[in-house]
C-alpha cells in the first residue's frame, strides 16, 4: 500500500504539468450524473444489469488519478460524490436483500453471482479506502482542497454505514449478534495513518487531521462498540505497520482520540454498552470491561514502545495519569516505562520529561503501592538550574508540595531542598522566585527545624570561624549538611529589582505568623503577566525624572558626561 502510494506521489510531480491536457480527456470520459442515474435505475430494475456495477467501479480508476494530480474541479467533485453515493445505494440494497450472502442450498449459478457481487463489493470498499488515502499535494490551500475533503469525509461516512449494514446482515447465523470487525479493522488501518507529519501540533502532539476529527466526533466518542473493537484490533494494526512515518501518524491519531475525553466513565460502567453503533453487537463480549482494559493496556504498551517523537513522548506522559492509567488492569506495567522516562530526562538533560513522568509515577506510588527506591534523591536531582526557567515548574512544585507534606520527613532532606531552591533563585526569573519563596515558607512552617536556615542558634562568638558547611555537589539530600547552612541567597533577593519580589522575599525576615501561603496564587506568573500588571497601574500625578543630566546619550568614551560610555551609534 505504502509503496503504491509513494509511486503515485512520484508521478504526481511529473504529471502535474501534463495534467492540463490530460485532464480534459479524462473528464470527458467520466460519466455524467444523469448517466449514473440511468445506470442506477437499470440495476434496480433487473439483476441482469448487475454488470453495470463494473462500469461504475471503473470510474474510480479515472477519478483517483485526477485527485492525485491535484486538480480541483467542482464538476469532478460532484460526480465522484454522486458516484459513491449511488454505489452505496446499490450495495446497501443488495446487502439488505441478502444477495451478498451465500445462502445454504442455493443453486450454483446463484452462488456464482453472489461471489461475483461480493468481489465487486470488496472492490468498492477498496476504492473508498483509496480515496481516503489520497494525499493532497498542498495542504496550504484549504479552499482548493475542499472538494477532496468532502469526498474523503463522504467515503468515511459511507464506509461506516457499510460497516453497520455488514454487522446487521453478514452475521453467520440469522439474528446472531455480530460486529464486522474485519471491515472495521481495515477502516482503522486506513484511517489511523491518514494525516501528515506537519499536521502534528508541536505543543501536545495531537494531530489536526480532519478525517480523524470527523471520525472522533461522529463515531468514536459516541459509540462504545467502536471503542471496544478499536482497541481489540489496535495491536494487530500496529503490528501491520512497517513505516516509521505511518507509526508516528498512528500514535498522534490515537493520542488525539484519547486526549480530549476519558475513554469511558469509570463511575458508570453499567451503562457503558447503552450506546452502540451497530444494531446488534455482541453485547456479551463488549460489556466485558476487564477484557477491554487488557486490550487497551496491551495496545497502549505497544504504542509507547514505538519510536516516538519527543513531543509525542511528552504528550503521552502528560495524559498518562488521567487518560491511561485508570483504564489499565495492571498499571504497574507502566512502571518500567515511567522510570525509564524519568531517567531519560536526566540523560537528555531535559528535566521536563522527568517532571512529566513524575506525575504518572506518583499515581502509581499513591494508588498502586509502587515502591520507588531513592525517591527523594531522584527528586533532588530535578532541582537543576533549568528548573525555574521551565513552564513545567509549577507542575513540579505542585507535586513536590504533595511529596513534602509529611511532617515525618527528615529535616536534613527538607533543608537540602530549601537550600538548593534558594541557590537556584540566584539565576531564576521573577516567576520562578515568586514560586519558591512561599513554597519555602510553607516548608519551614511544616518543618520548624528548618528555621535554622534563616535563624541559626549557634553562638555568635563562633561566627568568625564560620564556614558554610553546605555541599552543593552532594546528590543525596540527606547528606548535604544544608541544615547547618543558611539561605543567604534568599536574603539577597530582598534586593531584587522587582519591587513585588523584593517585598515577598522580606517574609523570611518577618515573624512567621501566617499559617501558610496558598502556593497556587504564585505558580502561574510569567513576564507577560508581570508587565501587564505593571502597565495596568494608573498614572497618579508624578513621574520622577532623572535629575542627573548627561550631555550625551551614547559614545563619549573620553568625556564623563555620557549616559552609556562604551557604545556608539
Amino acid at each position: 500500500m505504502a509503496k503504491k502510494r509513494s509511486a503515485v506521489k512520484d508521478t504526481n510531480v511529473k504529471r502535474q504539468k501534463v495534467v492540463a491536457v490530460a485532464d480534459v480527456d479524462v473528464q470527458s470520459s467520466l460519466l455524467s450524473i444523469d448517466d449514473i442515474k440511468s445506470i442506477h435505475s437499470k440495476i434496480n430494475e433487473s439483476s441482469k444489469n448487475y454488470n453495470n456495477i463494473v462500469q461504475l467501479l471503473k470510474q474510480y480508476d479515472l477519478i483517483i488519478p485526477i485527485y492525485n494530480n491535484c486538480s480541483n474541479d467542482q464538476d469532478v467533485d460532484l460526480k465522484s460524490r454522486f458516484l459513491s453515493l449511488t454505489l452505496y445505494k446499490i450495495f446497501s440494497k443488495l446487502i439488505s436483500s441478502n444477495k451478498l450472502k451465500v445462502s445454504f442450498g442455493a443453486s450454483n449459478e446463484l452462488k456464482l453471482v453472489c461471489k461475483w457481487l461480493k468481489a465487486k463489493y470488496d472492490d468498492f470498499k477498496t476504492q473508498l479506502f483509496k480515496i481516503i488515502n489520497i494525499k493532497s499535494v498542498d495542504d496550504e490551500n484549504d479552499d482548493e482542497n475542499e472538494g477532496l475533503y468532502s469526498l474523503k469525509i463522504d467515503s468515511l461516512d459511507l464506509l461506516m454505514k457499510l460497516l453497520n449494514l455488514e454487522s446487521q446482515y453478514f452475521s453467520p447465523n440469522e439474528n446472531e449478534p455480530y460486529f464486522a470487525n474485519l471491515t472495521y479493522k481495515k477502516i482503522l488501518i486506513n484511517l489511523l495513518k491518514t494525516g501528515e507529519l506537519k499536521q502534528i501540533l508541536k505543543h501536545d502532539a495531537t494531530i489536526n487531521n480532519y478525517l480523524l476529527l470527523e471520525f472522533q466526533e461522529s463515531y468514536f466518542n459516541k459509540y462504545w462498540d467502536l471503542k471496544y473493537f478499536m482497541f481489540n484490533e489496535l495491536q494487530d494494526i500496529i503490528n501491520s505497520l512497517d513505516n516509521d512515518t505511518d507509526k508516528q501518524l498512528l500514535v498522534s491519531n490515537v493520542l488525539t482520540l484519547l486526549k480530549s475525553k476519558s475513554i469511558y466513565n469509570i463511575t458508570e460502567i453499567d451503562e457503558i454498552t447503552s450506546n452502540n453503533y451497530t444494531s446488534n453487537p455482541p453485547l456479551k463480549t463488549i460489556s466485558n470491561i476487564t477484557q477491554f482494559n487488557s486490550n487497551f493496556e496491551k495496545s497502549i504498551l505497544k504504542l509507547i514502545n514505538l519510536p516516538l517523537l519527543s513531543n509525542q513522548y511528552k504528550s503521552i506522559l502528560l495524559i498518562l495519569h488521567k487518560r491511561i492509567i485508570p483504564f489499565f488492569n495492571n498499571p504497574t506495567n507502566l512502571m518500567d516505562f515511567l522510570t525509564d522516562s524519568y531517567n531519560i530526562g536526566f540523560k537528555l538533560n531535559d528535566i521536563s520529561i522527568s517532571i512529566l513522568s513524575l506525575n504518572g509515577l506518583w499515581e502509581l506510588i499513591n494508588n498502586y503501592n509502587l515502591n520507588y527506591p531513592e525517591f527523594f534523591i531522584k527528586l533532588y536531582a530535578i532541582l537543576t538550574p533549568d528548573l525555574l526557567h521551565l513552564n513545567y515548574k509549577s507542575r513540579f512544585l505542585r507535586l513536590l508540595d504533595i511529596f513534602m507534606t509529611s511532617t515525618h520527613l527528615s529535616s536534613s532532606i527538607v533543608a537540602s531542598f530549601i537550600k538548593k531552591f534558594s541557590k537556584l533563585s540566584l539565576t531564576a526569573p521573577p516567576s520562578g522566585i515568586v514560586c519558591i519563596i512561599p513554597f519555602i515558607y510553607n516548608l519551614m512552617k511544616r518543618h520548624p527545624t528548618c528555621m535554622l536556615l534563616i535563624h541559626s542558634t549557634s553562638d555568635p562568638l563562633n561566627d568568625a570561624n564560620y564556614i558554610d558547611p553546605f555541599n552543593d555537589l552532594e546528590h543525596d539530600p540527606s547528606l548535604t549538611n544544608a541544615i547547618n547552612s543558611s539561605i543567604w541567597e534568599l536574603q539577597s533577593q530582598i534586593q531584587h529589582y522587582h519591587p513585588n519580589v523584593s517585598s515577598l522575599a522580606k517574609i523570611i525576615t518577618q515573624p512567621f505568623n501566617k499559617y501558610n501561603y496558598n502556593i497556587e496564587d504564585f505558580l502561574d506568573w510569567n513576564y507577560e503577566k508581570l508587565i501587564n500588571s505593571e502597565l495596568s497601574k494608573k498614572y497618579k500625578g508624578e513621574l520622577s525624572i532623572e535629575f542627573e543630566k548627561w550631555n550625551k546619550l551614547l559614545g563619549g568614551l573620553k568625556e564623563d558626561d555620557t549616559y552609556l560610555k562604551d557604545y556608539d551609534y
Partner: protein
Amino acid sequence: MAGSQLKQLKATLKSAGLTGQTNQKKKGKKHAQKTPNETRRADKEELLSKIREQFNPFDVKVTRNKRADAMEKKRTVGKPGISKQIGEENRRAAWEEKMSRKNKVGGLVDRRFGENNADLTAEEKMLERFARERQAQASKPSLFNLDDDDDDDGLTHLGQSLGLGMSSAGYDDDGDDDNEMDEDDFFSKKRGPQVDIEESSNEPVRKKTKAEVMKEVIAKSKFHKHERQKQQEATKAAVMELDDDFEDVMSTLRSTKQPRGSGITPKSEADIKYDMKVKEVALDRRAAPADRTKTEEELEKEKNDHLASLEAARLRRMEGVLDEDRVADADELDDDFWAGSDNEADGFKIRDSDNEDEANNESEAESESDSEDEDKDSPRNRAAGQVGTITIGGKVIKISSSKAASSIPCPQSLTELNSYVSGNDYRQQISLISKVFQVYQPRLAAGNKEKIGVFTSVLLDYILQLADTEFSKDEREKYIELMEFLSKSIRDLSEKFQEKFCSDFRAHIESIQKRIESGDSNTYPKKSDLLFYTVVGRTFSTSDLYHLVVTPTVILMTETLEFLKIEKNPTHLFAGIYISDLLLQYQRLSKRLIPEVINFLERAFLALIPEPEKVSYESLATREIPAKPCGSNLKPNTELPQELGVLKISEWNVTSESHRAHLLAKLVKTLDGYSSSVFKEKESFQEIALPFIAITKHLVKYHASTPAVPALLSKLQNLNKIARSERKPLRLQAHRAVAIPTYVPKFEENFNPDKKSYDPDATRQEIAKLRHQIKDERKQALREIRKDSQFEAREQIKKKKQDYQDYHSKMARILNSIQTEEGAAKNQYEKEKRQRKGR
C-alpha cells in the same frame, strides 16, 4: 413557738408584760424604780410596734443593694403597705373635695379672718377683725399725697375725665398745643385731686350711660375731622401763593451772571502728563534694596543644596517612601527648556548658524516689544518673516503672525514629521525641529502646549525609527548630532509632559512586549529597542523602588535576557551585553540584584570564551554538565584588544573574530562593573561569584596578557575572600518578643461609695446631676398620675356600684311597700268576700 397565731400573740404580749397582771412584783425594784409614767408609756408604744412588726413581716420591705450590702451599710427599710395606705387616704381626701364641688360653678370663698379657725371664739374673731380693719385704714396713703396717682381717674365731669382725658383725645397735630398740654398735664397732676374732692363733695359721681359714651365719641371724631380740613385748606392757600411768586423769583435768579466752565476745561498735555506721573508714582513700588549679586561660592552652594534635596528625594524613592512634596520639583525644572530658547544658543548647543539667526530674531521680536522703531528698521526682522501686532490698552504686543506659524507645521504624527523633514539631511532636520519648538512655544498661543506634547511623542517615535535606519559613513557625524539632539529634547521635555510621556512610553513597552511574545527572533530585538531602553534610563529616575515606566522597562529587559538565543545569533549576543551594561547603569545607585543578568553573563561568557568545555562545570550556576562549544566561541589563540574601544550599535551583526574578542573584553568589563557595585554588597556574593571565578580562571589561561582579565580575577578572589571572612549564619528571626498587652486597673484615690460621679468637669457633673433629677422627678410624677387615675377609676366603679345598689334597694323597697299594700288590700278584699259569703 407552738400554737395558733392568736395564742402566740397572747404569749408574746404576756411575756412583754403588757397583758395580764401589770403590777407583778416578780421583777421587783428595778422595774419599779424605772417606771415614771411617761417613759413607761413610750416603752410600751415601742414594744407594741415591735411586736406588730414581728407578727406582720410583710409590712416591711428591705431593698437589697449589692454594693450597700458589701459595705455593711444600713439597709433602707420601707413600709410599702403603710405608705400606700397614706397615699390612698390623701387621694381620697382630694377626691372627696373634688366630688363635693362637682357640678358647682362660682360661689363665695369666705376669706374673712379666722373664719375656719375653730380655736377662736366668736368674740375673739370680731375683735381681731376690727383691729385688722383699723390697721388697713391707717396704712393707706393720704389723699393729699401729690405723687400718688393711684387707681383714681383724676378729674371727671359728667363721667368724662378732665385734663388727662383731653390729652388722650389728641390734639397731637399741633406742636403748640402739645406744649400747652404738657403744662396742662403738669398742673392737672397738682390740681386734680383738689378739684376731685370739691366735685365729689358737691355731687356724687355719676356713671355715664352707653348712649352718652357713644355721643361723646362721635362728637370727638367730628371735631377732629373739621380740624384736619381747616389745616389742609391753609396749606393749599400757601402753595398757591408760592406758585404765584415763582416767576418773579426765577427772573431775578436769571438776571444775575455767573462765572462759567472753570471746572470742565479739558486738561492740557502737561496736566495729563503730570497726572500720569502722579499715578505712576503712586503705583510705583517702594524703593527696596536690590538682591545682592551672589558670589561664586554662594551660587555654588545654592546649586549643591538643590542637588542635595533632589538626591534626598531620590533616596526616599529608592527606599520606596512616598513623599507628597515632589510636585514642586517639576515646576522648578520647568522653565529650563523654554528659557534656553530665550537666551539663544544655551538651549540648543547644536544649531545651524542660519537658524540661530532666525531664532534670535524671533526671540528678539518677542522680548523687545516696546522698542518698535528699532524693530521696524531692522532688515533682519523682515527676513525673519511677517510680524503681526496687536494693540491692547495702548500697549503694542508683537507676535509672530499666523502666516509664519502656518509655514512651519507642528507635526502631530510620525508620517507628518517624515514629510516635514524629508529631503533634508540630518543636520538640517535639527534646525527644522528646533524651529518647531520656537514657533510653538506654549506662551505664544493657546493650544501650543498640547501640540508640543504630541510633537514630542512623535519625536520619540522618530528617534526610534531613526535608530533602525541605516546611515552611510559620511552622514555619521550628522546622524549622531541629530540623535543626540532628539534624545536631549525628549529628556528635557519629559518634565513638562509627564502624563503624555508616561502613556507614550508605556505604549512602546506594550508593543515591544507583544513582539517578544510572538517569539520571533527577527522582529526582536531591534536597534530601536536598545535605544528605547537607553532613552528611558536617561530620562527617568531608574533608582526608584517603583516607577511607572522604569519598572516595566526593566522587566522587559530582563525578559529579553531570558529570551535571547546568544549561541545562535550574534546580534542577540550583542544586544544581551548591551542590555546588561545598561542595567548596570540603571542600578548604579540602587544596586538591586538582577538574577537574569547573572544568568546571562555566565551564558555569554560560555558562548564567547575559547574551549568552554574545559571550565570546571561543577561550579557553574547555569548548567550541570560541561558546556558545549558553539559557533561563537573564540579560538584559543585570539588576542583580546588591549584597550577597549566603543562598540557601535550599527555594527551589531558583525561576526568577525576581532568583533567577538571585543565583545568578550567588553563582557569582562561589564562583569567587573557588576562585581564591584551590584554584587559586592550582597550576602550571597560567594554563590554569585563562584561560577565567574571559575570562568575567569579559565580565561586567564588564554588572555593573561590582557591586563583586564587577571585584574578581574584577583578582584573577584579578593572580594570573595572578604565575603567568606565576613560570612555569618543568618539570624533573621531575632525579633523582639512582643509583650502581651496588660490593662492596669484604674484606682480612684479618695474613693467615696456615696459619690456617684468622678467627673473632673464640674459643670458637666452638675448638668448630669440635674438631668438625673429631672428623670427621677418625671418618673415619680408619672407614677403619681398613674396611681391617681387608677384611684379615680376605682372610685367611679365603686360609686356606680353604689348607685346601682341604691336604686335596686329603693325599687325593692317600693315594690315591697306596694306588695304590702296589695296584700293588705287583698286581705281586706278576702275578708270582705268572706263576710259577704258568710251572709
